[in-house]
């Protein structure tokens, strides 16, 4: 490796990390929170027993899971302006990623709810609790534990997926590395450097994921 390359790596490290901390992670975190709300609402609609709600939920999950995220982002950012909806790149990315987390999360939450034994519902009912009381106080707390590991996985996946936002001009970490490449003509070095920083992020997240799972595993072990 030449001195110049090493110097570029050193000079780019802080700008890339900064973009990661200030743009990549906030986008991932805010999309994840909104996505989780969507996921729970969609899962509840799906199991509500109300045909129209269940159909809406299924339709939503079908569309989002059946089409590429990149295409969805393009529709939102480049497509919607044709009908007069012009969104800033951050908002467009936020909507795209939230919808995605919501759809995949919907299936995770639904599976978790359905994994709780029928006896738990019946215990709630037998005490005179209503369906929504039983759901809120008995089923969802248990289901949320079950869904922590798969949801943590989707969060880690989401952190990587935010690099797609580069394609709609949102200057997160990957877009930042593209900008530096345009100045320095060192694609291999810079994209590798960006990859390493993603790897650091996801490794740290995996570490906390493991800790969290161990803790949940301990308190619910039978």
């Amino acid at each position: 490796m030449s001195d110049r390359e090493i110097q570029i790596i050193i000079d780019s490290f802080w700008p890339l990390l900064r973009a990661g901390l200030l743009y990549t992670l906030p986008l991932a975190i805010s999309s994840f929170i909104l996505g989780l709300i969507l996921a729970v609402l969609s899962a509840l609609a799906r199991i509500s027993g109300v045909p129209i709600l269940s159909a809406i939920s299924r339709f939503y999950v079908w569309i989002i899971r059946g089409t590429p995220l990149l295409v969805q982002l393009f529709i939102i950012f480049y497509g919607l302006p044709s009908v007069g909806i012009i969104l800033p790149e951050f908002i467009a990315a936020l909507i795209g990623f939230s919808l995605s987390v919501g759809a995949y999360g919907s299936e995770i939450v639904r599976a978790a709810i359905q994994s709780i034994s029928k006896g738990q519902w019946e215990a709630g009912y037998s005490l005179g609790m209503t369906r929504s009381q039983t759901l809120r106080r008995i089923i969802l707390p248990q289901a949320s534990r079950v869904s922590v590991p798969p949801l943590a996985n989707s969060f880690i996946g989401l952190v990587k997926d935010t690099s797609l936002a580069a394609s709609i001009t949102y200057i997160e970490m990957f877009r930042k590395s593209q900008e530096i490449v345009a100045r320095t003509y060192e694609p291999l070095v810079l994209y590798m450097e960006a990859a390493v920083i993603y790897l650091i992020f996801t490794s740290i997240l995996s570490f906390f994921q493991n800790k969290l799972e161990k803790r949940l595993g301990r308190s619910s072990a039978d």
Partner: protein
Amino acid sequence: MMIEIRNLHKSFGALEVLKGIDVSLDKGKVLVIIGPSGSGKTTLLRCMNLLETPDQGTIKLSDRSLDFQKGRKVSSKEVTELRKRTGMVFQSYNLFPHKTVIENVMEAQITVQKKSKEDARKSSQELLAKVGLGDRGNSYPHQLSGGQQQRVGIARAMAVEPDVLLFDEPTSALDPELVSEVLKVIKQLAIEGRTMVIVTHEMKFAADVADHVLLMDGGYIIEQGHPKDVLNNPQSDRAKQFLNRLTGEDI
């Protein structure tokens, strides 16, 4: 009359499980239901708190009466009202694993009876003391033995001050050495004059605690009466067969 059930029918698909059941029970009395596996005991019990909806018949429980007809829906408010008058103890306990023992007992007092947390805690503590678990309130269910878990189940069922307690084979998931601690608690409740309906295979216990025994077979009540008569001197061949087999197993 605390319980009055008339002409109760229930089918699962094409399988008719209850074929016209009549049950009456006075306040403060203990009804024990026995019968071979698959005879409909659990279904009858579950109809009493509407975990199953009967197809036909009448259920009167305390001051509530509900009439069932195929195709007519009972409002969920009526269902909840009837359920508040019963407490159910499940074969597999069904305790809430994410809540401590005392929170299990407090839960319905807070959500259903709208008691304050302090009041709920106080009365739940008393209930736990009553089942001999006054010192285990802060444990989680999985930290208790099966017998202790089932006693929590009993305390939880009593938490909403039901008029009738329903037990579905409360000891059949337990290791043999843990059975008696649970039966003792139930026996104590009988002495205190609780109205109870108990499905069990423990014949000695049945003879000891029951005021009235029902023997079910194939969706019918084939024998009923005073425990002495039904258990020692059954009339029908089917009843004799069942009881002989059981006493054979007991020895």
